[in-house]
């Protein structure tokens, strides 16, 4: 299974017949296509969350193209690695990734947010092939991911579980309940990634509710912490590889990102957290992402 427009790298051999692997150079091209999908489908829907979708693209592209063991033709394959989107408002990003991986046709992406579409406004596990968890109410994904990871351990399966959180989402108390529990249960087949874009709806996170120092918080909760540039594919891949070697505790990758990444007038602009581009803005955005 190879996503459209990408090619399997001969240097990559998978432990199983699953997974999609492309070369490092191609990742940037894939990510750009995903960003184009995101702005296009949010623009067409007339509502949605471009900022936090764009900030997470490179993280999730790295996961689906370089890290995850998965079979798009068999979304319920019991041995698949799991990706859980806790920040459910980034659903347009996840849908674009899944479509590029052939979980469903790319042509379906433009049904985003329409009545009866499989692509609901926020991620819905009952609707979309490849979506592991329903999200949208923040703070719940890490707990869910612990359950998935514990089930893997109970079943002696070697799949790994990845969960993406927002930095603003780390305001939620449940995140820290879960952080405590993951370390307590030594869930080392679990990796959390914080999309640390520094903004939330009401403004910069440092002004609204300061989450700093995130690294020290996670460390104090018993996690192995890796900090990385969330737009550097090489560093991201290295971080995910390093996480596989950490035993006895969970790993968190704190990825520094830019909200709205890739579209100049959306970058670091709070207003584009939950606002669709208008027609003119969409044209400009697509030119920039050409």
């Amino acid at each position: 299974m190879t996503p459209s427009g990408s090619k399997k790298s001969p240097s990559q051999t998978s432990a199983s017949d699953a997974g999609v692997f492309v070369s490092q150079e191609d990742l940037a091209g894939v990510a750009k296509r995903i960003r184009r999908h995101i702005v296009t489908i949010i623009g067409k829907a007339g509502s949605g969350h471009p900022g936090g979708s764009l900030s997470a693209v490179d993280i999730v592209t790295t996961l689906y193209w370089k890290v995850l063991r998965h079979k798009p033709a068999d979304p319920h394959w019991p041995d698949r690695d799991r990706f859980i989107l806790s920040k459910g408002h980034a659903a347009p990003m996840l849908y674009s990734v899944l479509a590029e991986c052939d979980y469903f046709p790319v042509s379906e992406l433009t049904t985003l947010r329409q009545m009866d579409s499989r692509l609901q406004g926020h991620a819905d596990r009952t609707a979309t092939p490849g979506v592991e968890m329903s999200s949208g109410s923040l703070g719940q994904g890490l707990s869910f991911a612990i359950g998935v990871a514990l089930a893997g351990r109970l079943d002696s399966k070697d799949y790994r579980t990845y969960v993406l959180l927002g930095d603003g989402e780390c305001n939620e108390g449940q995140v820290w309940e879960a952080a405590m529990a993951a370390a307590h249960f030594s869930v080392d087949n679990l990796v959390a990634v914080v999309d640390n874009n520094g903004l939330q709806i009401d403004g910069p996170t440092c002004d609204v509710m300061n989450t700093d120092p995130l690294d020290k918080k996670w460390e104090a909760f018993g996690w192995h912490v890796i900090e990385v540039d969330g737009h550097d594919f090489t560093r991201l891949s290295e971080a995910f590889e390093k996480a596989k070697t950490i035993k006895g505790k969970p790993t968190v990758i704190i990825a520094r990102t830019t909200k709205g990444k890739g579209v100049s007038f959306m970058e670091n602009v709070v207003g584009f957290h939950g606002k669709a581009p208008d027609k003119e803005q969409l044209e400009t955005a697509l030119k920039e992402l050409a």
Partner: protein
Amino acid sequence: MPEESMREAYGKTLVELGKTNPDIVVLDADLCASTMTKYFIQEFPERSFDVGIAEQNMIGIAAGLAASGKIPFASTFAVFAPGRCFDQIRMSIAQSELNVKLVVTHGGLSVGEDGTSHQAIEDLSLICSLPGFTVIVPADAVETAAAVKAAADLDGPCYIRLGRPKLPVVFDDNYRFVPGKAVAMRDGSDAAVIAIGIMVAPALDAAEMLAAEGIKCRVLNMSTLKPVDEAAILKAAETGAVVTAEEHLEHGGLGSTVARILSQKKPVPVEFVAIRDTYASSGKPAELLERFGLTAQDIAAAVRKVIKRKS
């Protein structure tokens, strides 16, 4: 009637289920000695997760386990689930259509001395509002064991509400619980009392008292509150007068459910034995049930009243 603990019945049934079904896992939030999941935790430590005082996290972990093929039983007090973690139950379990079993204890006023913070009198309203949930309120220890077994076999989210005190045993060991089916406890043609949970035994007592006055009262145990046995409710209404009895606020529980159905399909006078729009107090369970109108005498008075309203 001899009395037995529903919580003990739950704990022991879980162990029984755990022996035959390796997919059953148990979660608790620092209350395993009260909810009685402790028996399972002792027997199957590797399949047990005490998450500490963190109910929201417990719900999420349970959902993740269920999404991966496990059958999680998650337990705490009824005030904490659904109260403490309603949004987690809503999104991670109900909207996600996941096979999580919430078995909660210390439901209702009969918690007693711990007072209002610990008396769950809103939980049935909250949990019944969630599409897809099966909601069961057993009447005694025998029905508790049967309902827990049935819940394990049901595919979908399930809420079972248990009480704290020992309760009179109203069923014998041959009792077969069928989810979604009301149980006719006593026949009668003058009025019908539909009761759940700890109100079933007093409903039977009330029927006995009324029989001495020549009033023949049907008694139904509506242990599955959702999906409710509509046919049984309509049949009860053939008596021309209905009384509901629950250890819960009158809003959103059994009474509301029965009234909704009857108002549409068979309007008859209905009286509600339930807690009015108020919080209670610390006190002994029996004192509280008396103060807040949840005794056999209250049920009998409601039956006399509803019969007077028959056209």
